[in-house]
């Protein structure tokens, strides 16, 4: 059955953009466990650098539901209502861009190294 594919895609474009950005931006400190708060229609911190094997947990503090979605299947939450969490363990190095499928204005990036 055909399903519309949510397209956070543009992975190639985003990857190029990331390479260009990381060449100039100062590196974030590497952490081994991470919680990202969703508050005020934003991911905080919006950009995070983690070690391979780190589990990242998103917690939605807003009274409005949010999701956490990247272009691939690795990061793909359902609707997180207030105080609900979603966790993903990152086992492969790389840069992961994600956003909220309910609010297009939201975005975040995880760098795994």
């Amino acid at each position, binding site marked *: 059955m*055909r399903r519309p594919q949510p397209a956070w895609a543009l992975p190639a474009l985003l990857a190029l953009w990331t390479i260009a950005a990381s060449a100039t931006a100062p590196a974030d400190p590497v952490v081994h466990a991470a919680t990202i708060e969703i508050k005020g229609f934003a991911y905080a911190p919006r950009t995070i650098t983690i070690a391979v094997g780190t589990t990242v947990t998103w917690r939605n503090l807003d009274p409005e539901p949010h999701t956490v979605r990247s272009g691939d299947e690795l990061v793909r939450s359902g609707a997180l209502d207030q105080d609900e969490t979603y966790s993903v363990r990152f086992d492969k190095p790389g840069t992961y*861009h994600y956003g909220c499928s309910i609010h297009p204005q939201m975005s975040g990036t995880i760098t795994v190294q």
Partner: protein
Amino acid sequence: MPSDAANMASRRHALKCLAYGGAGTLFTLAGGVLTPSNLAFAAGGTAGKATGGVPLFVQISDTHIGFSKDANPDVAGTLKSTIELVNAMPDRPDMVIHTGDITHLSKAAEFDTAALLMSALRVIEVHTTPGEHDVADATASEYFNRYGKPSANRGYYSFDHHGVHFVGLINVLQFKPNSLAALGTGQLEWLEADLKGRSSSTPVVVFAHMPMWNIYQPWGWGTADADQAMGYLRRFGSVTVINGHIHQIVQKVEGNITFHTARSTAYPQPVAGAAPAPGPLKVPSDQLPKMLGVSSVSFKRHPGTLTLTDRTLV
């Protein structure tokens, strides 16, 4: 200068309208031109007759079944009131279009409740397009399992009704991160082909969930590639583009194209940029005049609706 009595009547009427959550929008077809009017007033017994047209459809939007926070702990109740209003309309049309956010969290139980409530509508046809709250489950399957058939699970489709061509579009699955909603290339190609052989004198109604013009980009209130769709629609003599999502009435006219956003039946949202973020707006009674102000701006853009409002208030 309105009298005190008029003010009281105005306040009572406003409270009544607010209690119905804005209810919906009635569209009538008169001389090939679609005229939206506010349903809360239409149910007062004058709007359907006053426009002198053929009732075409009622737009219901953003019912958010499953929401239970302070802004409205009883969204099922307000949807029920809305349906009662529709059923009681003197010139009730035979079709309802729900422009999305049927549910709040895309849960099966929420869809079931919504369907049960909507089944009380005394209309022949109900059409839908999903909101982002309807496709928030990880596989987007709850919505499509129930409402995917007319579009073969693509989310976009068209049909004709009373000589009007209706186009349902989906703009909640292809967000660009940190940007706006989008239709996507495949859907745009389909739209171009769908409209190609049609006479420019055919009235067209386009319905989608998110605004089809850029209302407020910082809150994502727009569709990035909507202009391309408008390019295919511009040659038609009468185009009405309706959506929900922002829970308040905003209208724009551009040539032959009228853009109209509907209210929610669940809760209001702040005016674009009037809060740090969009979301449910709790309205205490002392904030009511502010809410009414928002509504009256919209009414000024509809001369017909404004007239009805004045009459009711007196």
